[in-house]
């Protein structure tokens, strides 16, 4: 993979990833990550250091695993009665590719949820750090910066 092909492959990988989330294919989603992969949904989008900040999610592999188990366990009353969701992802831009095996991409995501007669939007800037793995990728980092991250949110029954 090189040049435009890498970018196109990465875009298709990201589309597949979010399609899994929209369709609840969480076990497949868990396999997309590197062992040290971090899934972060910050409150302060410009925090210099998410580890020392309060986030909505700051997940390593174990925490992602628990999160998926919670959503699918039937033990959580909000997840059992989950919102319907759908998202679109676009406006991809290559931010960094100086290491041929690692690619950093930023894109726009707009997720819409429907629950209790209410339609809500969750627009965000998403940054991926993807590591080449054979003919596909693994996610080393996914940071979802909700544009209303400093606003008052409501309970989320899905993964961004």
């Amino acid at each position, binding site marked *: 993979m090189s040049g435009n092909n890498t970018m196109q492959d990465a875009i298709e990988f990201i589309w597949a990833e979010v399609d899994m989330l929209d369709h609840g294919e969480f076990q497949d989603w868990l396999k997309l990550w590197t062992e040290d992969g971090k899934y972060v*949904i910050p*409150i*302060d989008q410009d925090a210099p250091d998410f*580890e*020392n*900040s*309060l*986030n*909505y*999610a*700051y997940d390593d592999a174990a*925490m992602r695993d*628990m*999160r998926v*188990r*919670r959503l699918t*366990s039937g*033990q*959580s*009353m*909000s*997840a059992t*009665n989950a919102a319907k969701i759908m998202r679109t992802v676009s406006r991809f831009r290559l931010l960094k590719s100086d290491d041929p095996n690692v690619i950093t991409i930023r894109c726009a995501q707009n997720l819409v949820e429907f629950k*209790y007669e209410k339609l809500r939007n969750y627009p965000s800037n998403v940054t991926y750090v993807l590591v080449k793995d054979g003919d596909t990728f693994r996610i080393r980092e996914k940071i979802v910066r909700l544009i209303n991250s*400093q*606003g*008052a*949110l*409501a*309970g*989320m*029954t899905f993964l961004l």
Partner: protein
Amino acid sequence: MSDYAELVKPDQVHTSLYRDEAIFDEEQQRIFEKTWIWVAHESELPNPGDFITTYVGLKPVIVNRDKKGVVRVMLNKCRHRGATVCEAKKGNAPGFLCPYHAWTYSQDGALRGMPLPKGYKDFDKSDYGLIQLRVESYNGLIFATFNEEAPSLDEFLGRAKPWIDLFMKQGGGFPVKTMGEHRFTFPGNWKIQLENTTDAYHFPVVHKSFLTSLDGDTEELFSFMNDGGFVEDLGNGHSVLVMIPSLVDLDENLDEPIPERFADLAKSLEGRYSDLEIRRICRAVSGAGFNVNLFPNLACSMAFFRVLRPLAVDQTEIRHIAIGMDGGPDEANQARLRLHEHFQGPMGFGTPDDAEAWERVQRGSHAGDQSWIMLNRGEDKTDDNPGDVTAETGMRAAYQMWERMMSA
């Protein structure tokens, strides 16, 4: 005015308290403008000029520390045409400038000047400072009230004070500081949330998915249904819910073995802290084993502050403020942040399930005027009764205070 004694019985309350707009409006006047409302923790204002903006009831206020070090709470409203003078959530400011006609106020709220002052006759600037609320604090908790006649904060908190002191021991030898917050809303009345931090009965039901995500020892700790916990009425609508009696006083039992789940933390602190300091930090890192509920808007809840703000009769904002050890080790504060994220917030393993339950209570409250909420569960802790962790004592205490204030 409704006959509130008819709507609040000793062991049940009428659901109109959740959905009647006239009652909501009256609550603003009779409760939120009359009693002490928690506005900030002192760690949010360490230096002169530091400020935050928040609300007392529905009213926007600035909480700041002036150049003499005095903490002030002032209406966030220019005296001229009423625009807010500050829209930042927090910061440090030498004063406040109204953006509309450039009236300027100093840190202590005094009106300093305005453009073209000759346009005013017989005008004494000292009459037009930002409107100040009464401010008092206890052990780092800053409260304000519009009511000059209210009893002192000391008297108002009364028997809750020793519990606040115990709660603050989770600094683990350091002062307690705030570390950010999760802020969310739910479509329901504020009192539904007020009840919740005194309600141990819901925990194993609503939070089953949280409990099963914990390691065995921690899950054991949270299995507190038959573990000697209790709820105690502390007067003035305040109460304490003790879920884990072994974690009431975090300065006690420091010679016990450090739990396995904190072994890595303890190891990483070796060499930098004494054995006793490490034991104290590890014992404090997951918070206290109880919730102190302070009527009407604050709970010091295990390892965080829960702050509620009524927005409308059927709309409430909740903030879960993370707290940590000011000057303490990064590892300990990171552990606290991760624990907070695990349970709290719109993506936590606990909060979304609570919010779902509260929304369902609000939806159910429309099911007819004959509907009453039961508060009769369990026996109160008294000198000769050990009480019951699932008792609805805290709710009874809060609603009795509510009824007294609304009928006063």
